[in-house]
């Protein structure tokens, strides 16, 4: 793997983790009796932007390197299910996240929390799915090793 791809992979992971952390902050903040508007706004924006970054960096790595170099290794080993189930699930569920984060940010930008209860659910489920995606990434890395 080239240095560029190594850096890209690291950046992808960083973006993903930062986005997941920001998503958690949004969810927890919405659970407060008096959510702090600026905190919500910045963290929801951070979630959306970092996941966009993870999409682009991970997508490039996946298309250019993973498919040709990593996938055959996993599928030939004893953890073939790590690609066929986990990677496949991760690469498609990840497509949900930027849209979920964008919608959340858009709604929180209005400053009105009239639909707060459903926003709590949305932010919680967004965070939960992002945790699953993160865990899937860890598992796939382990399968390669």
């Amino acid at each position, binding site marked *: 793997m080239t240095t560029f791809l190594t850096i890209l992979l690291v950046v992808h992971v960083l973006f993903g983790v930062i986005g997941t952390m920001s998503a958690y902050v949004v969810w927890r903040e919405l659970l407060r009796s008096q959510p702090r508007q600026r905190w919500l706004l910045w963290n929801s924006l951070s979630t959306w932007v970092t996941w966009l970054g993870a*999409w682009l960096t991970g*997508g490039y790595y*996946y*298309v250019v390197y993973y*498919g040709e170099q990593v996938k055959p290794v996993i599928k030939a080993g004893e953890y073939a*299910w790590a690609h*066929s*189930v986990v990677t*496949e*699930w991760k*690469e*498609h*569920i990840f*497509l*949900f996240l930027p*849209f*979920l984060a*964008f*919608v959340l940010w858009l*709604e929180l930008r209005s400053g009105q929390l009239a*639909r707060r*209860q*459903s*926003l709590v*659910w*949305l932010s*919680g*489920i*967004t965070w*939960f*799915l992002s945790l*699953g995606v993160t865990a899937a990434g860890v598992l796939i890395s382990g399968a390669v090793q």
Partner: protein
Amino acid sequence: MVAALTIIFITALTIIAELHPPTKDWLQTTFTHHWIGKSVLALVVFGLLSAMRYFFPNVKPHFGWLSGVALGCAVALFGFFLYEYYF
């Protein structure tokens, strides 16, 4: 509503592409990679639905429904890939 329909679209397209090889081949040849195709089409669908929403400004967003759709589609896809691998 727009995000929920986009997520349903992604899920449906993923399952269809796995079960119907010509669809996956079309995504591959048109977009150089099937995953890029799904990403681009998801953005297009989201954009088009968002634009259409301008004509229905009184339609309120349903975030509770969006949560359910996202979780349901995630579970459905996991079940699908599990089934496809083991059976």
